[in-house]
C-alpha cells in the first residue's frame, strides 16, 4: 500500500461526510495527511465514536450500589461482595462472520475476551447470541457450521467455557447474520485495571502478536452497509490465534498482580489508533509513539497500515517509568513480543513518528470528545400500522393440534441446541453448575458459596412489531430467566443490532427500543454497565429486525439454591405463577410464524410492577427451597413451556397431566400457543403446596395449580396430548434435521 493524496473525495471513500471532513480541517487548522485521514476515519466511524447512538444511550440507568465501573471502559464491573467483582461485556461480530464464518466468529470471541481481561478479570464464562436466516436458505447451513465451529475453536482452545446463548432463525437475517459474544470474568477489587494513560514520561508498551495488514478498514466495514462490492473487501478478515491469546491472557494477569503498570487496553477495532488515543483521552494526556518500534509481521508497512491494522491478540500498556524490564521479563517468559514504542506526554497531542519524521499529529480531544455527535431524525415507519394489524379470529384453526405442537417444538428455533453446545467446552474450569439447556447458566464462584447466573435474550419479532415493548421484553425476559434460576439480576450488558441509522425509520426503532429497555431497567433496578452498538445491518437496503440483545447477570448468595427449568420428580405439583397475566396474545408469536407464516400484530403486554414482584417471589421461593423447578412462558406459550419442562431434563423425558389454564373458553390453539409475559411454570413436592401458595401471597402473585408431573404423555386435558418420548425425540433431532446438518 502507498500514501495517497487527501481530498474530500478520498475522505468520502473513508466513510467521512463532507461536513465531517470540514470539521477535521477546522480542528487541525490544516488538511490532514493520509495517515491522519485514516486515523480520523476509524475514530469517527460509527463503531468507535457512537456518533448516532450516544445521545440515546444516555437514557440507560447506569448507576447502582454494586456498580464499580459503568459504560465508558472496556467492560463494566459489578461488586459481588467478599472483595470480588464481575466484569462483563457483549460485542457483535456480524459482518466479519457473514464473510468468513469461522474466523469472523472466532475473532469475535477473541475480542470480547480481551475486553474483559484487560480490566484485570480472569474470564470464567462466555455466552453467544446467534441469529441466522431461514433454515432452508442456501447459505444458512454453511454459516451455522462455520460460526459454531469458530466460537468453539477459539473458546475451547483458550479454555473459557461457553455456557449458554441463543440461536434463532428468521428470513430478515438471510443476508446479514448476527453474532454477539459475551464474556464474564472475576476480579478482586484491588486488581481492577483501566485503560488510562496517566503519568507524563511513563512508557507506552506494545505486547502480544506482531502487526500485519489484517483487517485494515475493519472498523469502517462494520459501519457500512453490505452491497455487492463487499466481496472485494474480503481480505480484511482476520485470522484468530487463540493459542497466542491464551499466552497473552496469562501474561497480562501475571503482570497485573504486580504494580508495575498504570493502565492497559486491548487493541480491538482500529487497533493501535483507538487504544492509544482512548487511553490518553481518559487520562487527559497525550503521547509520542515511534512506529519503527512496533513489532511487524510483514514487510514494507506504511504508517497508515500500522495505525489501522486490526491484527488480533495485541495489547497496549502504560507502565510506570523504570519498571519496563519487569514487564519485558513477563512477556518474554510467555514467548510474546514486547516493545516500548513511546511515552506519555502532557500536552494533549497524539504524535506518531516513523523513520525519524512526524507522520501524524492530532489533538487527542479532536478524535474523542470533539468527535461528531448526531441527533439523527427519527420517524415511525408508515408500515407500522399495517404490521400491527392482526385479526386472530381470521386464522384457520388447525385440525391436529398435537401435530402443530410437535412441529413447533422441533423447528430449529425451538429444538434442542445440543448440536451447538456439544461443540463448546461448557465444563472447563469446573464451575458450571447448570450446563446449557436451562433458562440461565449457573456457575459457582470458587472460594465462596456464591453463584453467578447468566442469560442472553431478545425476541426480535416483538421488536419489529413494537420496538419499545420489544425492548422492555428483552430486559424483562433475561431478568426473569435469571430469577428463574434463583438469582438476583444485578446488571446487564447489551448489543444493539440495527439497520442504517441514517434512515429515520431505523432511528425510530433504535430510540424506541432503548427507551423501552431503559424503562424496564429502572423498574427492575438493573443498571446497564457496558454494551455495544452495531448499525448498518442491512444487505442491499434490506434491514434486519431491530435486535437489541440483552445479557443479564445475576447473583446467588448461596449457589446451592439454584433452580433449573425441568421437572424433578413424578408426583410433583405444577403451578402457574402470574396466571392472571394469561391472555390471547398472538402478535409476533412463534405459532403465528410457524403455523400461519405471519409476523404481525402487537407483542404481549408487559406490566413492569407485576414483573418485579413476580421475580422477587421466584427468588424467595428458590432461596427458601419451596420449588423444584421454574420455567417462564416465552416462545410457544404455555404448551411449549410445559413441554420443555418435561423433556429438557438431562435424565430423559417425563410426562405431565394438566388442565387448560385459561379460565374462559377460547380457541384451543390460542390457549396452547398464545405468548404471555410475566407467567412462570413452577413445580413443587405435593407436601410443599401450601407453603408455596402462602409464599406467593405477600408478593400478590396469582397462583393456579394446573396439574401433576408423571406418566408417559404430556397431556393438556381436553386440548391436546403427545407422547413424552415422541416429543422428546422430535425435539432432539429437530435442529440438525431442520438445517440438514449431520447429526
Amino acid at each position, binding site marked *: 500500500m502507498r500514501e495517497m493524496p487527501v481530498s474530500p473525495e478520498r475522505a468520502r471513500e473513508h466513510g467521512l461526510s463532507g461536513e465531517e471532513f470540514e470539521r477535521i480541517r477546522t480542528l487541525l487548522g490544516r488538511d490532514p495527511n493520509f495517515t491522519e485521514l485514516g486515523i480520523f476515519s476509524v475514530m469517527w466511524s460509527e463503531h468507535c465514536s457512537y456518533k448516532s447512538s450516544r445521545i440515546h444511550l444516555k437514557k440507560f440507568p447506569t448507576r447502582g450500589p454494586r456498580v464499580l465501573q459503568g459504560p465508558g471502559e472496556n467492560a463494566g464491573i459489578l461488586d459481588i461482595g467478599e472483595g470480588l467483582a464481575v466484569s462483563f461485556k457483549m460485542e457483535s461480530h456480524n459482518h466479519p462472520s457473514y*464473510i*468468513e464464518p*469461522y*474466523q469472523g466468529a472466532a475473532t469475535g470471541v477473541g475480542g470480547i475476551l480481551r475486553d474483559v481481561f484487560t480490566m484485570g478479570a480472569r474470564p470464567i464464562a462466555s455466552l453467544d447470541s446467534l441469529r441466522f436466516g431461514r433454515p432452508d436458505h442456501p447459505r444458512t447451513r454453511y454459516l451455522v457450521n462455520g460460526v459454531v465451529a469458530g466460537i468453539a475453536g477459539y473458546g475451547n482452545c483458550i479454555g473459557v467455557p461457553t455456557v449458554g446463548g441463543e440461536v434463532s432463525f428468521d428470513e430478515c437475517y438471510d443476508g446479514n447474520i448476527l453474532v454477539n459474544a459475551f464474556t464474564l470474568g472475576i476480579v478482586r477489587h484491588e486488581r481492577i485495571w483501566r485503560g488510562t494513560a496517566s503519568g507524563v514520561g511513563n512508557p507506552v508498551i506494545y505486547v502480544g*502478536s506482531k502487526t*500485519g*495488514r*489484517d483487517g485494515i478498514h475493519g472498523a469502517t466495514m462494520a459501519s457500512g452497509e453490505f452491497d455487492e462490492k463487499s466481496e472485494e473487501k*474480503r*481480505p480484511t*478478515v*482476520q*485470522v*484468530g*490465534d487463540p*493459542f*497466542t491469546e491464551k499466552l497473552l491472557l496469562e501474561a497480562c494477569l501475571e503482570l497485573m498482580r504486580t504494580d508495575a503498570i498504570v493502565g492497559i487496553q486491548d487493541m480491538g477495532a482500529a487497533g493501535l489508533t483507538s487504544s492509544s488515543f482512548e487511553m490518553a483521552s481518559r487520562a487527559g494526556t497525550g503521547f509520542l509513539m515511534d512506529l519503527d518500534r512496533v513489532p511487524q*509481521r*510483514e514487510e514494507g508497512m506504511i504508517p497508515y497500515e500500522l495505525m489501522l491494522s486490526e*491484527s*488480533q491478540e495485541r495489547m497496549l500498556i502504560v507502565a510506570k517509568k523504570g519498571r519496563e524490564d519487569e514487564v519485558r521479563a513477563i512477556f518474554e517468559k510467555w*514467548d510474546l513480543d514486547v516493545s516500548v514504542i513511546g511515552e506519555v506526554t502532557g500536552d494533549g497531542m497524539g504524535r506518531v513518528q516513523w523513520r525519524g519524521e512526524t507522520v501524524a499529529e492530532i489533538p487527542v480531544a479532536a478524535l474523542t470528545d470533539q468527535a461528531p455527535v448526531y441527533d439523527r431524525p427519527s420517524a415511525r415507519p408508515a408500515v407500522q400500522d399495517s404490521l400491527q394489524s392482526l385479526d386472530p379470529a381470521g386464522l384457520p384453526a388447525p385440525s391436529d393440534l398435537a401435530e402443530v405442537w410437535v412441529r413447533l417444538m422441533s423447528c430449529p428455533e425451538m429444538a434442542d441446541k445440543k448440536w451447538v453446545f456439544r461443540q463448546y467446552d461448557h465444563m472447563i474450569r469446573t464451575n458450571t453448575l447448570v450446563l446449557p439447556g436451562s433458562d440461565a447458566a449457573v456457575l459457582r464462584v470458587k472460594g465462596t458459596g456464591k453463584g453467578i447466573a447468566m442469560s442472553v435474550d431478545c425476541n426480535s419479532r416483538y421488536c419489529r412489531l413494537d420496538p419499545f415493548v420489544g425492548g422492555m421484553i428483552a430486559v424483562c425476559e433475561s431478568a426473569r430467566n435469571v430469577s428463574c434460576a434463583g438469582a438476583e439480576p444485578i446488571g446487564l450488558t447489551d448489543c444493539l443490532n440495527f439497520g442504517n441509522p441514517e434512515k429515520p425509520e431505523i432511528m425510530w426503532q433504535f430510540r424506541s427500543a432503548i427507551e423501552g429497555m431503559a424503562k424496564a431497567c429502572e423498574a427492575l433496578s438493573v443498571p446497564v454497565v457496558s454494551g455495544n452498538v452495531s448499525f448498518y445491518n442491512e444487505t442491499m437496503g434490506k434491514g434486519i429486525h431491530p435486535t437489541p440483545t440483552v445479557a443479564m447477570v445475576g447473583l446467588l448468595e448461596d449457589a446451592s439454591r439454584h433452580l433449573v427449568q425441568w421437572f424433578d420428580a413424578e408426583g410433583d405439583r405444577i403451578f402457574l405463577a402470574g396466571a392472571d397475566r394469561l391472555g390471547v396474545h398472538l402478535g409476533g408469536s412463534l405459532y403465528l410464524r410457524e403455523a400461519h407464516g405471519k409476523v404481525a400484530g402487537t407483542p404481549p403486554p408487559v406490566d413492569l410492577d407485576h414483573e418485579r414482584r413476580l421475580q422477587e417471589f421466584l427468588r424467595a421461593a428458590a432461596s427458601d427451597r419451596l420449588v423444584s423447578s421454574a420455567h417462564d412462558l416465552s416462545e410457544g406459550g404455555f404448551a411449549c413451556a410445559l413441554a420443555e419442562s418435561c423433556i429438557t431434563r438431562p435424565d430423559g423425558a417425563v410426562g405431565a397431566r394438566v388442565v387448560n389454564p385459561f379460565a374462559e373458553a377460547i380457541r384451543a390453539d390460542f390457549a396452547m400457543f398464545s405468548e404471555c409475559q410475566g407467567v412462570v411454570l413452577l413445580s413443587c413436592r405435593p407436601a410443599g403446596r401450601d407453603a408455596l401458595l402462602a409464599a406467593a401471597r405477600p408478593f400478590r402473585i396469582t397462583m393456579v395449580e394446573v396439574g401433576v408431573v408423571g406418566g408417559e404423555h404430556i397431556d393438556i386435558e381436553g386440548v391436546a396430548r403427545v407422547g413424552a418420548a415422541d416429543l422428546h425425540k422430535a425435539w432432539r433431532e429437530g435442529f440438525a434435521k431442520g438445517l440438514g446438518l449431520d447429526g
Partner: protein
Amino acid sequence: MKAKIFVTLKKGVLDPQGKAIHASLTHLGIGGVEDVRVGKFMELTLKETGRDEARMRLEEACRRLLANTVIEDYRIEIEG
C-alpha cells in the same frame, strides 16, 4: 485418474500454525529455517474422464467447498 489439490493461506494472512512450528524447529536445534507456512493437501481419485472436464469440476469443488477464497488460495494438479 489422480488429482492433487493444495490449499494455502493467502499472502499476508496470519498462519498461527506455521509460526508455532517454526519456533519449535528452532528449539529442536534444526536451524536454517526462515519461514514455515502450513497448508492443506488433498489427494483425489477420480473416475476416468477428460482432463479439462476434471479440472473444471475440481475448480468448482475448490471454490464452493475445499478452499475459502476469502483467506485461502488453491492450486490443482492433475496427474496421468
